[in-house]
């Protein structure tokens, strides 16, 4: 971007402009979506680009920059979805990311999306964005909800007052989006200047001081872009920005003198004066351009729900009931029904047919074994658990979309604070029951580094949904009448180990200043069916993809290694294979846990690739025809206590590669990542051995 665009009143410039317009018709523009957390940026992003990015109803769903191509033939543009920010003075890593993008990458256009139901606070960021040398459009979102609340905004007046284009939209319903794109296209193709700098946000005295400081910046540092923004940040003593400038002592003195020209007292210091004047400016604009048509009922539905959801005596029981319900629906009769149906379809309809066809075609023994053992039985055994994984995922998504997550964080904050965490840790921890990877990334909503690291360290102990096939297989084989309670205990053990871990490390490894819990509570929303379906569909796709790639791959490798001996000749007895040889080398370690079997060791190893692989490897290695048969063999190979010990080990040991790499990415420290892996293995081994030993001891007293 160049600043000469500002001065197109002379004729040479206008001629250039016409040429530029021609070039601009084919240019691909960069459009950034900026706004407060939970204002609907990702919903708008999905609408504009046709993508399916994750959306939820709590502040901070998006923690990474995401790019997509605009689906519109009139305008060629890349849309960048940015994490939400409340202000351009950032606190958490994802907020720094957004500020750096806007201030340094200079997008061609910013779409500042604001929540119309909360316009006052949302416009606070707008007043800061208006200080940048960047075109912007104000997209006033959620106008459908605003209407229901009986509020009216005069958009024309708002546009006139703010001096930037205003477009009312409803990102979730899709309203106003054509207008938004038309406006963007008009600005970008015709090089219209849509900066908001003309606005006099501050009082005359401060405005003149800002101008003086921007002049100093321009003269002294040759910075011409965003100098008003920098000038205000210098006035606010923004540490990151001031450290960017290397003024000499004389200039520094000059700036200090300018700062002193703002009268302050013990209540209003410079920082507060600037924020206060922004808000006064906003209030005066809001007062003129918004109207309350119908007086709102005293208590909104959100407030009514909150009386129960955050009430003194009701909130904790409600939380427990909700968690139990999620659990019961997933692992109780409903989930079980779907699992059995899926098993039938895979074994009877698909498996049998494939086998018949292969025999009919005259397939050789080894190729029949490859397809039937590795592909059908191995991968099939995993896929039959898909329904239950989906139910769990769907229910968690429902909670995420409803707005309950931030209430649960509110209720749990004090408990989590005692563990050296913050209420905000609750959201990624709960997401961990779905999948560790998004949960680990999601922990970026926690501003405090110590809290964030501790949360990431604990997430692997929240049993992820990929582990459920293992529990289901073992619980249904060994405890057919007490499945739900056994699996429930496993989940609880994971939580207890996390609590114990937090206690161990809160004053040592993750010591530091206390975190804050200043968090917006969004209004409840009934989760949209479309969004819910999107989450479930994504998970299904992901699951099938994994089954068809990594899990199948791992199973085929295992099949190969267990079918050939070290001379590469086909063996029918897998205990003579290369794999058995290697497995037998390691397995004695697990004697103390009760499962010193090379097949178990190999299965656990494949679990590092993907947890579901444990089941497919076992199905293959224990040479079962179908799930019933596998259960039968397992009950003959494991004692009850060994089975429990195995489940405990699977619960606690190192998560899959994808999760480990996410942990590494967030820690940015190899040392800490390796430490977490060692710790997980140690804890898994310890608790697994304890389970087996104590179980066996108790068992010896029971006749």
């Amino acid at each position: 971007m160049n600043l000469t665009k500002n001065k197109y009143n002379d004729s040479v410039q206008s001629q250039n402009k016409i040429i530029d317009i021609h070039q601009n018709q084919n240019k691909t523009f960069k459009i950034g979506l900026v706004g407060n957390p939970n204002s609907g940026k990702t919903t708008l992003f999905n609408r504009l680009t046709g993508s399916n990015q994750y959306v939820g109803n709590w502040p901070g769903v998006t923690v990474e920059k995401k790019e997509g191509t605009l689906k519109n033939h009139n305008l060629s543009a890349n849309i960048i979805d940015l994490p939400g920010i409340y202000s351009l003075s950032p606190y958490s890593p994802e907020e720094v990311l957004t500020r750096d993008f806007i201030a340094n990458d200079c997008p061609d256009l910013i779409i500042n999306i604001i929540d119309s139901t909360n316009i006052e606070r949302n416009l606070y960021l707008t007043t800061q964005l208006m200080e940048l040398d960047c075109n912007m459009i104000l997209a006033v979102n959620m106008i459908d909800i605003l209407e229901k609340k009986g509020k009216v905004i005069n958009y024309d007046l708002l546009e006139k007052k703010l001096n930037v284009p205003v477009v009312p939209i409803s990102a979730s319903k899709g309203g106003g989006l054509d207008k938004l794109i038309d406006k963007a296209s008009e600005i970008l193709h015709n090089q219209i200047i849509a900066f908001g700098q003309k606005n006099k946000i501050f009082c005359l005295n401060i405005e003149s001081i800002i101008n003086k400081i921007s002049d100093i910046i321009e003269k002294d540092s040759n910075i011409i872009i965003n100098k008003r923004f920098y000038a205000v940040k210098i006035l606010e003593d923004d540490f990151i920005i001031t450290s960017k400038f290397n003024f000499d002592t004389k200039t520094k003195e000059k700036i200090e003198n300018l700062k002193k020209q703002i009268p302050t007292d013990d209540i209003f210091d410079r920082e507060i004066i600037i924020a206060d004047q922004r808000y006064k400016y906003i209030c005066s604009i809001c007062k003129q351009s918004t109207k309350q048509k119908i007086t709102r009922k005293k208590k909104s539905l959100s407030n009514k729900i909150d009386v129960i959801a955050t009430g003194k005596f009701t909130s904790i029981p409600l939380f427990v009931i909700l968690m139990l319900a999620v659990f019961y629906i997933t692992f109780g009769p409903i989930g079980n029904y779907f699992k059995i149906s899926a098993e039938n379809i895979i074994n009877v309809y698909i498996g049998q047919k494939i086998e018949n066809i292969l025999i009919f075609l005259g397939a050789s023994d080894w190729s029949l074994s490859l397809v039937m053992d590795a592909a059908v039985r191995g991968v099939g055994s995993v896929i039959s658990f898909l329904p239950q994984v989906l139910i769990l995922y769907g229910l968690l998504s429902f909670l995420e979309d409803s707005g309950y997550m931030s209430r649960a964080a509110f209720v749990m904050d004090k408990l989590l604070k005692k563990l050296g965490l913050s209420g905000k840790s609750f959201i990624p921890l709960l997401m961990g029951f779905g999948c560790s990877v998004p949960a680990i990334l999601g922990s970026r909503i926690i501003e405090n580094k110590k809290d964030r690291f501790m949360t990431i360290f604990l997430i692997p102990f929240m049993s992820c949904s990929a582990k459920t096939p293992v529990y289901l297989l073992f619980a249904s084989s060994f405890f057919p009448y007490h499945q739900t309670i056994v699996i429930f205990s496993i989940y609880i053990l994971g939580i207890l180990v996390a609590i114990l871990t937090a206690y161990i490390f809160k004053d040592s490894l993750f010591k530091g200043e206390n975190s804050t819990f200043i968090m917006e509570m969004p209004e409840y929303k009934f989760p949209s069916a479309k969004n819910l379906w999107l989450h479930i569909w994504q998970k299904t796709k992901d699951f099938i993809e994994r089954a068809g790639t990594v899990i199948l791959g791992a199973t085929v490798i295992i099949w190969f290694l267990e079918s050939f001996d070290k001379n590469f000749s086909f063996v029918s007895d897998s205990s003579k294979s290369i794999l058995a040889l290697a497995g037998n080398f390691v397995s004695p370690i697990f004697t103390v846990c009760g499962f010193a079997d090379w097949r178990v060791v190999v299965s656990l190893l494949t679990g590092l690739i993907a947890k579901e692989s444990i089941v497919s490897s076992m199905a293959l290695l224990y040479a079962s025809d179908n799930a019933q048969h596998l259960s039968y063999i397992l009950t003959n190979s494991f004692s009850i206590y060994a089975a429990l010990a195995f489940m405990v080990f699977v619960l606690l040991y190192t998560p899959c590669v994808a999760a480990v790499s996410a942990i590494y990415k967030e820690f940015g420290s190899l040392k800490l990542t390796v430490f977490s892996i060692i710790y997980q293995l140690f804890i898994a081994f310890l608790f697994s051995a304890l389970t087996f030993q104590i179980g066996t001891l108790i068992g010896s007293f029971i006749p």
Partner: protein
Amino acid sequence: MNKLSNVSPGHSGVVIKLGKSGKLRRKIIDMGITPGTKITVLSVAPLGDPIKIEIRGYELSIRKSECQEIIIDEEKEAIKSNNELN
């Protein structure tokens, strides 16, 4: 005059003074808590902390330890003129 952390649920007041400058105060300011604004304490979490407040038409949760330095005048009503551009 009272600390926001001591205001009981259902009561409201006007912000008189914020505490020492720093990261925490910056966050508080950015969330819209500035001198002259009206705050209503909506509820206290079941375990006694944090609290939920209403400010500028939205709901915010904040720990008692974080609003220790926010001084509130429960008598005073939000001055309308204070919210207008002077």
